[in-house]
């Protein structure tokens, strides 16, 4: 199921980097920013250009939690499960989101609108429990608030 991926974008990204293997992580970060994930054809393309094995890149992608191998939904819903959020009930928040979106952690809804993720600490512990949708941050998401937050993104 290899879909056609436009390599021109990756070409443009690679032009900015000249240091070889030490550029790998920044290149992958830019690729993910542009494509939303790391498409397999792009992986092979980077391997060729940076002159490293595809297996090396695959190892790096699977090691770091930031990199995705599948396209994500329009909105990424992140529930912070850091210590402070955990103490303030993030487990319940996570459960509520799971029930609302009907996807597991790491999954994307069928309509491609939401991807549900858990992250370890976004550093806003005083606002625990935290939920981030796209780039919008919501603090002190107490019981019942989750629904309101998600609702905002269900239509637009």
């Amino acid at each position, binding site marked *: 199921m290899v879909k056609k991926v436009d390599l021109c974008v990756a070409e443009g990204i690679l032009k900015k980097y000249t240091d*070889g*293997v*030490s*550029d*790998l*992580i*920044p290149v*992958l*970060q830019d690729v993910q920013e542009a494509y939303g994930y790391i498409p397999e054809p792009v992986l092979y393309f980077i391997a060729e250009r940076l002159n490293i094995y595809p297996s090396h890149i695959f*190892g*790096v992608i699977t*090691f*770091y*939690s*930031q*990199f995705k191998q599948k396209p994500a939904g329009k909105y990424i819903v992140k529930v912070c*499960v*850091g*210590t*402070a959020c*955990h*103490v*303030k*009930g993030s487990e*319940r928040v996570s*459960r509520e989101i799971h029930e609302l979106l009907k996807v597991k952690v790491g999954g994307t809804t069928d309509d491609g609108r939401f991807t549900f993720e858990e*992250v*370890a*600490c*976004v*550093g*806003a*512990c*005083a*606002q*625990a429990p*935290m939920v981030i949708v796209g*780039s919008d*941050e*919501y*603090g*002190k998401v107490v*019981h019942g608030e989750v629904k309101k937050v998600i609702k905002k993104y269900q239509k637009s």
Partner: protein
Amino acid sequence: MTKNETMTNKPKIILGMGTCGVAAGAKALLEKVEGYIKEKKIDAEIVHVGCIGMCHEEPLLDIVMPKRTRVIYGKVTADIVSKIIHSHVQQDKPEKEHVLSQMLPDDGANPYPGIPYYEEMPFNRKQQRIVLKNCGFINPLSIDEYIARDGYESARKVLLSMKPEEVIDVVKRSGLRGRGGAGFPTGSKWEFCRKAMGDKKYLICNADEGDPGAFMDRSVLEGDPHSVLEGMIIAGYAIGANEGYIYVRAEYPLAVKHLKLAVPHARENGLLGKNILGTGFDFDIELKQGAGAFVCGEETALIASIEGERGMPRSKPPFPANKGLWGKPTNINNVETFANVPQIILKGAEWYANFGTEKSRGTKVFALTGKINRTGLIEVPMGISLKEIVFDIGGGISDGKAFKAVQTGGPSGGCIPSEIIDTPVEYETLAAVGAIMGSGGMVVMDNASCMVEMARFFLNFTTDESCGKCVPCRIGTKRLLEILERIIAGKAKGNEMDILVELGSTVKAASLCGLGQTAPNPVLSMMRYFKDEYEEHIKDKSCRAGACTALSRYIVSPDTCKMCGICVKGCPVDAISDGTKKSKKPAFIHDDKCIRCGICFEKCPFDVIYTKGAKKAVHAKEEALGEVKA
């Protein structure tokens, strides 16, 4: 420029726009303020600042009128902000209802009567701000404001009048130790790297603050990025490096953004790049963003990550000081360590060493969070007791509940129970009680936190983040986690505590890097101080905190129930009957419908809901009645 900025001729409206401020609604507030001053044609300047530390009062808004003291307002929502601006900016009358405090008029500014001073508030009285001196006071995007508060003065002093050895000597005499958690003396670390043989040396700032429950470095990078850059310039000069890297977590978008602006600003001002301040010293800084791996906080893993590899640690020696980035001598310090350096150079080693205790000098920044009244970012002199932090600065436990434990050092640390809460904050004393200083996360727990479940939480994290290179960590943490999960599920066999101690000690002793060497700390320290609770879980299959759902059941004490109806309203599955004034009967929780979410337990204002081990086959209501009578 002083705290009250009396030089200003225009009213200033200052908004806290750090991550926590934004999460509390500062963006909506900003729009409202902009709209209001435009509409009313008010000639005022809007200033964005980083976190001032009082996260519990966010969103914060400060107003400075010409020649008056700076006044701080807390919990400012969009609907009250126009009232505040109308009263304060247009009439010079602070809006008393929402005002928190004003800054001390130490610069001749005219104070307002009847408003307490910021420095004298319980949250601030015991604090000592060295690293956080500028956070919340200056616009982090303005290098001029940093310079106006003695910024880059130390870099100038070092480059123009000091030898590298002299710089190292000052840092050594100041007693500064690594603020990333391990506490290695910074001056000695620099000296090793200075003396290491190599044609090229590197400097790295570790800004990969991965400890869940900590945000000290984020606040410094967001609120005062130039202090870190200045510390790095000084360190680069001291060790003889011309290239520096800041390895910053990608989960901190605002910190990344501020750094991306601060570095070019410093370059434009001749403070980074070639021939800095005409001294012939070259030094430049590049940003590297982490990609979400906790283990990259470990020095050698971080280096591997910058090199484009998987972030896996290697065994030491050779230490990075001899063989680091691309095999060259490398010095790595944490954000807070660097931010201390300019102040030490500026005011002297002796001044700095005056703060703190004999072995732990200076101050430490902590992220005070959890079930506490005043959450926030604090900086305290070393040697202060945890009790003072939790009760005097933090204002005690929220909702009037009882203090159970405070966790320091995150997944590498341990917990400190109420019996030894007088423990002073020092590297050695904290280690002696089974906790660690750590990078500065301090999470306060009340009776609703279960010590078995918390240990599971931390081990779940370390198991997930273990890089998998060495067996003790990869498999050992997994087995520890499985044992804890078994206890929590009510399937304990009886010998779990012995195995946890034995296996935990092995993982500590045999793991390759700091992650594995410290991963068993939470479970070991919790077993040490909460042995009864572990035994209850294992033998009685009961969880007193009500956090382990398989082991608990919620019960309303019928005699003390005030029938307020709060739990009935709060229950998401309608499992609570009666309990209202109308019903005239105490609340009753139907165990068959209860999903053990704990909402009623948390919401009950009179603490009459409690938990009981689920395995006892007695009807809940009868048991409750029986207990109350007994």
